[in-house]
């Protein structure tokens, strides 16, 4: 299948201070890079998830695709046509085929418009005046499972889940090929969250559109998506099929994120990497691998050299940026023993060699083993 949306080397910057202040404070660049060099594609009917903590740039990507934010460089092509370069009016026919469900489900609905006007606004904007407006509103409400008399309500008369449904209905108005859902379940209760996700899945089965889901909730991703991309400070650090990443994450940050959602089971012994500290400020991007400040496996090389993306030997669609990618849990202990039997060597040389092997062969254990870097597993129940 061909790519519906292709994003290549996208960079988005925000100005942090005016030129005078930059001059006065001696700041070299008054910009921060919210998204730096991101490439991905979404095929027709596919679901892709962008996952990351706040400030990782996932919403910025969505806003740039939909045209609410200009990119500094890079290309966005939709169905083979480059759209980043286009002006507002030239872009319009393409925007008709994409729709966004905004994160703030109540705030994105104008409080002065009824649900009917909200749902039919897309027709007015795109000049489709000949449509039967009342009938369309009813059809859309039925599609998202709301009764037809909701058309007369105002947003303040809707609950959180209902407002989210209206947001989805509005996005569906023009039968888009791509829906961008920004945190579709944030702030919703677990029972309502299930309803919204089931609705999206059902509509995708019926209408066959592609979905780009932006979320920090990995439980949502596992059940909903085909592929996922994990973002950290504006870059993709791991991309691959959802199933494979859940089964076998290669980047330590991915593993930490996967373990970060506490299990609803008091006896669960989590094999957890607990992250220390917070996401660094974009204004002070760490050198080398940007995750090294929080990574328990970080070595000397991580602070200096930015890791290039490497692909998994088992699956070419799975790539990650890490000097010392995680190996399978079951394999690790055996190879750790092998590593220690080599005997004491200068630590640096061994890591360098391991890294070279890992990138060349990809099957060997790349993690520095034994004394300094042994895999530390924290179980919340045994700790303290």
């Amino acid at each position, binding site marked *: 299948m061909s790519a519906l949306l292709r994003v290549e080397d996208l960079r988005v910057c925000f100005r942090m201070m005016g030129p005078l202040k930059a001059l006065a404070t001696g700041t070299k660049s008054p910009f921060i890079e919210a998204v730096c060099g991101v490439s991905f594609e979404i095929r027709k009917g596919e679901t892709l998830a962008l996952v990351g903590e706040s400030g990782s740039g996932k919403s910025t990507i969505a806003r740039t695709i939909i045209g609410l934010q200009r990119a500094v460089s890079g290309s966005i092509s939709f169905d083979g046509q480059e759209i980043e370069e286009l002006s507002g009016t030239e872009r319009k026919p393409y925007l008709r085929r994409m729709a966004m469900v905004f994160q703030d489900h109540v705030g994105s609905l104008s409080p002065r418009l009824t649900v009917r006007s909200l749902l039919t606004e897309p027709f007015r904007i795109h000049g489709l005046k000949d449509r039967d407006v009342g009938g369309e509103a009813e059809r859309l409400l039925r599609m998202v499972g709301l009764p037809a008399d909701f058309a007369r309500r105002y947003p303040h008369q809707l609950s959180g889940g209902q407002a989210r449904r209206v947001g989805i209905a509005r996005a569906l108005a023009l039968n888009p090929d791509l829906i961008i859902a920004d945190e579709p379940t944030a702030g919703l209760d677990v029972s309502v969250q299930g309803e919204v996700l089931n609705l999206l899945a059902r509509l995708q089965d019926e209408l066959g559109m592609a979905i780009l889901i932006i979320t920090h909730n990995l439980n949502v991703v596992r059940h909903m998506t085909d592929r996922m991309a994990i973002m950290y400070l504006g870059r993709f650090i791991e991309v691959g099929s959802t199933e494979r990443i859940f089964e076998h994450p290669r980047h330590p940050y991915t593993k930490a994120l996967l373990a970060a959602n506490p299990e609803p089971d*008091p006896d669960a012994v989590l094999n957890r990497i607990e992250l220390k500290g917070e996401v660094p400020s974009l204004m002070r991007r760490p050198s080398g691998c940007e995750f090294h400040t929080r990574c328990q496996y970080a070595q000397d090389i991580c602070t200096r050299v930015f890791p290039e993306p490497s692909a998994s030997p088992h699956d070419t669609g799975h790539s990650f940026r890490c000097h010392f990618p995680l190996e399978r849990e079951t394999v690790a202990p055996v190879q750790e023993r092998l590593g220690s039997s080599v005997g004491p060597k200068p630590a640096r040389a061994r890591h360098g060699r391991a890294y070279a092997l890992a990138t060349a062969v990809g099957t060997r254990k790349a993690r520095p083993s034994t004394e300094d870097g042994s895999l530390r597993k924290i179980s919340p129940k045994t700790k303290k």
Partner: protein
Amino acid sequence: MRRDHLTSHTSARPVLEIRDLNLDFGTPRGRIHALRDVSLDVPAAKVIGIVGESGSGKSTLAYTVMGLLPENADVSTGSILFEGKDLLKLPALARRRLLGDRLSMIFQDPMTALNPVRTVESQMIDIQHHEQGSRSEKLARALDMLQRVGIPDPQTRIGAYPHHFSGGMRQRVCIAMALLVKPALLIADEPTTALDATLEVQIIHLLKDLQKEIGCSVLFVSHHLGAVAELCDRVVVMYAGEVVEEGTVRDIFHNPAHPYTRALLECDPGRIRQKTRTLPTIPGEIPSLLGSKKGCIFRARCPQAFNRCVQESPIEYRMGLDQVARCHLLDKKRLVSA
């Protein structure tokens, strides 16, 4: 009465005892019964979790204990005994003196909980106004507490304003302030909801460590089942203003007795190991709380509802040693087995 029975065989008296609390909100459309016959105990040095969907009254309960309710709220019956004193009967000034001394609170949104125009230092010294000691002693205590909640370089950071801190750091400052006064009871109202997943884990562990260290009780309000499972000793499940089930964290998560608790647990996508495209949900919506209600509050959404649920409100049925649920089904089971 089961409560009396409970208190007789536990050695220490609970820090907080809420008995048959009823609370209404007056609105133009009528009175909304936001809390109905809520009873719960918070034993000393334990963490009690309150879970439920939005609108279940869990935050209202927390605000009632703190005395932070809006003007249209009216407690019709019930008592809140805190260290033996009924908070609802205390004079306003005496009640206010308890806040920030024996009782303290962490709010949901760390972005708005701190005063934006004053430094963290002055706010942290202010909160110790009940304590004896000079300003420098209070400052030293504040610095020590900031260190304990994991804020690097507290000497320089304490002079900063709240907007200089990130969300996670601000929540740490809030926790430090709440625990600075060494309260007997800490009320945490969704303290991790506004934070990222990796920070949530950090904050939960921090709360747990500090609770052990200080030895206070915690009333932890959350809709996040994972957080509750990880932090709490006992769990109270609320639905539409009623306590439907109460028990130890293991009983509630491994052996839920009330259909609502079971449904709530099944909904959590984190529990579903197999990839699925259709997630379980609880059909229907929380019933309107306007007017008085007869029968079981959950019956409209309950898959096992029968005649009795419409006519009669279920009483509390005891399961095992320490688990209580309000459901007619439990009564039937007992009759069958007897």
